[in-house]
């Protein structure tokens, strides 16, 4: 007679293998879920730097990946909202995924956000995506002059900087978690050529 515990473990091991295969097929080199602290941020950028150094990545690409990773991780640690799931309350948590293909690096973050903040965030993202280089530069300079550092240390400059450094539009989605909170996904491409 089969032991139910064996089945459970077999199921889990299969899941791990599927997960691994799925990571490989999507060329994902790093997945993290949890609290994003400053220590975590430093660890991930050190890891990416070592990896890029080993792959002899062009120095411009290295610098852009570094920029985008720092801004994305600091966005989660500063802006991820609290949400409850079951008995747990999550705060400052999110997912962070790095993948790299022959053509580009792809950095994706996801974190909870209170629904009230979505219209404002959408407006900024739409504006940043619509502007050309010159207008992005003006917006950045203006934001630096006018914008005050918030108590969380953000200056509202991150999205503009990512868009300017990569030259790519920001890809984002909001998926409902509860009636009050959504999951905010942001993907940035860094072309390797």
């Amino acid at each position, binding site marked *: 007679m089969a032991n139910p515990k064996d089945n459970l473990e077999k199921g889990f091991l299969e899941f791990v293998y599927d997960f691994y295969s799925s990571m490989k097929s999507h060329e994902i080199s790093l997945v993290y879920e949890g609290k994003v602290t*400053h220590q975590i*941020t*430093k660890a991930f950028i*050190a890891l990416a730097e070592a990896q890029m150094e080993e792959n002899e990545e062009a*120095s*411009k690409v290295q*610098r852009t990946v*570094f*920029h985008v990773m*720092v*801004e994305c991780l*600091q966005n989660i640690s500063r802006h991820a909202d609290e949400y409850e799931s079951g008995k747990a309350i999550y705060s400052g948590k999110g997912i962070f995924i790095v993948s790299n293909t022959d053509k580009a690096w792809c950095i994706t973050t996801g974190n909870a956000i209170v629904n009230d903040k979505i219209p404002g965030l959408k407006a900024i993202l739409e504006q940043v995506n619509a502007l050309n280089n010159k207008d992005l*530069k003006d917006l*950045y*300079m203006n934001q*630096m*002059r006018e*914008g005050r*550092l918030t108590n969380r*240390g*953000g*200056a509202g*400059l*991150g999205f*503009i*900087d990512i868009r300017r*450094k990569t030259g790519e539009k920001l890809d984002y989605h909001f998926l409902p978690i509860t009636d009050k909170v959504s999951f905010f996904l942001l993907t940035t491409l860094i072309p390797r050529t």
Partner: protein
Amino acid sequence: MEALRIDGTEDSPQVILDLEANIMELSGRSLPEDVNTFYEPVLSWIEEYFKNPHDNTVFNFKLTYFNTASSKVILDILTQFEEMIEDGQHVLVRWHFPDDDEDMQEAGEEYADMVDVPFEMVSYS
């Protein structure tokens, strides 16, 4: 005036504000956990220096990376120099950048556009 020296780390720049050695410099990386806390002593030191400055002030930025939160503080430092100049002082900013780093060069040129402070762009390899 007492010198302010802070060793650089993997996430914060080296700070040398030393009048005896005649060095005023920020170098390395700037992405500290809390930008305000890190730069508070730097801004205070410059504010104090402003009260009794040397005839010629040369300030060196030799950063290899700074995050967007730091970019705002850099503008705050430059704004202090702008005030010194309005007050009749001589200030020169030397903006050092790696010769293959267009973004860092452009960042310096943008700051030079934003404030009325003389900039000297210095590339290094």
